């Protein structure tokens, strides 16, 4: 094949060059990679050491020879590996008519080998050529004719180098506005593609091919450059897009998401959507809000967005969403990313809002396909649809996990079990629902309520193994209990998605997980992170990572502001809420961790103090359910700060719970008390030590509505 011959032709000069280079390099000490010194250690400093000169020479030649052989082996192996990939590339190119979008990646690609050859870089994949290649790539003008000239004039191969060499070059060249030379690009692309034919230079053919691939349709399907790139299409990303558009007039924002859906909000997936009467809710994904108004879980309908093809040319800018594409590689130096289909997109500012992936239990992962088939990891729209469907066709479902998601799903499914025969079981290692969030007495109270929603709660349950027998799942607990069920929903936490950390060189936090960012949510120049994946510095509360909806909104908005030059730190404290059925509702803010000391100030609740009642008050009701009236607001016995023993379990009707750290309030739960979040936020923001928290509780007016 042509390639083989070209390959061998190239290898010969490579061999020659490599030995020359090796000798040269031995003299040029500071510039070499670690590998060189390892191979030629003794001869490094000089050719004639104090000791025996002759013996030194022999050693020297032996080492050079070894280097040459090593090169040859490496080159041969890479050539083999590349041949097939290259063939695919060439097929792709030739199968499509190519029109250039920009010739940037391609000329530098051709130039990089050229300059690398000029530099006489070593065979052993030394990073050194890149810095030198970059400046020299600048000199020849970034136009295709140069590339054409460069390509055939190549005689030597650049060393096999992972993407590094081509990256700085295209980076430098994307900065000066490209003057795409349309016609010459395809032939240049072909020429440049040919010459690095069997080269061990992996990235060049790819980059070249990409520019051709990108140029294929009349308008590129994916813009090759966008001023604002948002990786991830969730809540944080959408909030950032909105913020950017508000602050930077006519901004062009590109959202890249691997989901097939436009940005949507997640809380209704485990709450409101389950309570909908509409049988087609899995298709419409519409739910009734607190105020009775219906809305879709999608933040905006499709008409709000413009298509990626139109982004470049949109006069007033806009937000474009590229669905079904995953960013797999990030080049921070070059300010660009690579998608899973090899497309490259360069950016000016980038937001990483990749969220996370639900964790799974190891025992389930190891249990085999039959068990995994009957397990749901709940996070996305498709998981909601699947679970909804499954839950209609089975007799028993078990939710593993006692936190927010697990408890909400348990309540939602428990409600459904009233109409059907569905048995709903919830199991978790803590003593009660929300055991890691609520103080024990409230956790117990919550568990009782959850049970009343029709859920069989198994507390202090550690799963030992799961097997599938006769089409039923058997969950063996460590204390010996056996639970038989048809389907499992695992709600055991979220693993933040930090896939890009390695390629981008971003720091990952070891305590909380996620990308480590500063108080302004910045990871590195031009890169911000928001939402579930961001481990950020909260000026007031310290470094943390928050996995709540409102935090995604707040941090996304802040990131968008900072991407447009605001430089504001995280300051507006986000909140979260949970409703476990019509009777238990709370809003919370700050650090709400049950391991902290707490002080709870309660009044006895009336029928008026439930989430349901809060909306009926405002005149826009949701349909009411029958509910027994509580007794009147008669005060409970003691106002002394001592636990009052004669209280019944149910008397935590409404109140405020303060979470303390070193005597400072760092978290507050508003228990069945609504519309007081600003006061709570203020208290946390002040960060003061209050001697008497009862006095602070007075600020909330818990007895009023």
């Amino acid at each position, binding site marked *: 094949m042509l390639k083989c011959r070209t390959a061998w032709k190239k290898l010969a000069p490579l061999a020659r060059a490599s030995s020359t280079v090796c000798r040269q390099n031995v003299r040029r000490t500071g510039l070499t990679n670690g590998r060189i010194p390892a191979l030629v250690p003794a001869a490094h400093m000089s050719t004639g050491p104090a000791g025996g000169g002759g013996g030194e020479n022999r050693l020297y030649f032996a080492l050079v020879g070894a280097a040459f052989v090593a090169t040859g082996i490496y080159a041969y192996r890479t050539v083999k590996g590349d041949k097939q990939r290259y063939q695919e590339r060439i097929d792709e190119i030739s199968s499509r008519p190519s029109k250039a979008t920009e010739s940037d990646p391609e000329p530098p690609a051709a130039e990089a080998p050229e300059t690398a050859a000029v530099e006489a870089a070593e065979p052993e994949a030394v990073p050194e050529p890149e810095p030198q290649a970059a400046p020299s790539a600048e000199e020849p003008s970034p136009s295709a004719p140069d590339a054409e000239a460069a390509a055939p004039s190549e005689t030597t191969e650049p060393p096999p180098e992972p993407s590094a060499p081509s990256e700085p070059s295209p980076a430098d060249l994307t900065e000066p506005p490209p003057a795409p030379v349309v016609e010459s690009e395809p032939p240049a692309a072909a020429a440049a593609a040919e010459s690095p034919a069997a080269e061990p230079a992996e990235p060049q053919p790819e980059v070249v091919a990409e520019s051709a691939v990108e140029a294929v349709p009349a308008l590129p399907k994916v813009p090759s450059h966008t001023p604002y790139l948002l990786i991830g299409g969730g*809540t944080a990303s*959408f*909030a950032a*897009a*909105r*913020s*950017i*558009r*508000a*602050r930077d*007039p006519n901004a062009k924002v590109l959202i890249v998401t691997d989901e097939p859906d436009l940005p949507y*909000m997640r*809380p209704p997936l485990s709450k409101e959507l389950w309570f909908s009467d509409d049988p087609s809710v899995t298709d419409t994904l519409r*739910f009734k*809000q*607190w*105020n009775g*108004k219906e*809305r879709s879980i999608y*933040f*905006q*309908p499709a*008409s*709000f967005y413009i298509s990626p093809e139109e982004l470049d040319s949109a006069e*007033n800018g*806009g937000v474009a969403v590229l669905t079904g594409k995953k960013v797999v590689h990030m080049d921070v130096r070059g300010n660009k990313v690579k998608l899973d289909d090899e497309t490259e997109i360069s950016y000016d500012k980038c937001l990483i809002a990749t969220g996370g992936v639900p964790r799974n239990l190891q025992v389930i992962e190891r249990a085999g396909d039959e068990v995994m088939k009957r397990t749901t990891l709940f996070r996305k729209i498709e998981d909601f649809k699947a679970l909804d469907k499954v839950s209609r066709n089975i007799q028993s479902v078990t939710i593993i996990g006692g936190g927010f998601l697990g408890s909400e799903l348990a309540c939602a499914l428990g409600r459904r079990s009233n109409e059907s025969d569905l048995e709903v079981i919830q199991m978790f290692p803590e003593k009660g629902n929300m055991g890691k969030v609520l*103080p*024990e*007495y409230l956790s117990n109270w919550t568990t009782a309520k959850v049970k009343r929603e029709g859920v069989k709660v198994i507390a202090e349950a550690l799963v030992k193994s799961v097997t599938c027998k006769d089409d039923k799942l058997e969950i063996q607990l460590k204390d010996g209990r056996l639970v038989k069920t048809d389907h499992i929903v695992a709600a055991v936490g979220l693993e933040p998605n930090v896939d890009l950390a390695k390629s981008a060189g971003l720091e990952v936090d070891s305590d909380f997980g996620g990308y480590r960012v500063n108080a302004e949510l910045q990871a590195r120049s031009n890169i911000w992170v928001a939402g579930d994946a961001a481990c950020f510095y909260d000026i007031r509360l310290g470094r943390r990572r928050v996995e709540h909806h*409102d935090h995604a*909104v707040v941090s996304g908005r802040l990131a*968008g502001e900072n991407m447009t030059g605001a430089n504001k*730190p995280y*300051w507006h404290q986000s*909140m979260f809420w949970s409703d476990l059925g019509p009777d238990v509702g709370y809003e919370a803010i700050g650090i709400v961790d049950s391991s902290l*000391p*707490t002080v*709870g*100030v*309660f*009044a*006895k609740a009336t029928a008026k103090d439930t989430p349901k009642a809060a909306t009926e008050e*405002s005149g826009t009701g949701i349909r009411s359910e029958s509910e027994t009236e509580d007794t009147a607001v008669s*005060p*409970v*016995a003691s*106002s002394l700060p001592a636990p*009052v023993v004669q209280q019944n*379990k149910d008397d935590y009707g409404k109140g405020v719970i303060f979470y303390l750290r070193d005597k400072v309030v760092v978290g507050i739960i508003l228990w069945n008390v609504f519309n007081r*979040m*600003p006061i709570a*936020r*203020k208290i946390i923001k002040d960060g003061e030590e209050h001697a*008497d928290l*009862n*006095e602070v509780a*007075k*600020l909330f*007016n*818990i007895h009023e509505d």
Partner: protein
Amino acid sequence: MSPSESPCKDRIIFVTREDHETPSNAELIAEDPDDPYEEQGLILPNGDINWNCPCLGGMASGPCGSQFKEAFSCFHYSKEEVKGSECIDNFRNMQECMQRYPELYPQEEDKAESNSGSASDPPTEGSALPSETDSAPASSEPESAVPSDSMSPTDDQTAS
């Protein structure tokens, strides 16, 4: 079960209405309205419009964002006797744009013509966090009954 296993860790106080009748002596730090860190309302301390105010929702960021900004800015800085009377064209542009996106800006005839700058019809756009509903900008103009659509499902404000 007793309310608290370790009395030192989780304290519980029950209070009567009378207990809480006396005003609180808890001290809160005075707010600085010009604090740049704080979330700003609709109007910034320097008089400019805060386009990123959650109260505006997506009005300034949607497809008709630039028309909305022009119209609203014109109105905001208008010194005419009938405020905004010179901004008719801007509002017309905005309305025309919005008519092209009925899904995003459901047309309500009576409000659409409002010259007072109330973009109160664009309903599904815009967002407010539940937190923002509480801290709605106090200094906003009377007409700016710009409704917020919710980015959060428990938002109390009407999304039209």
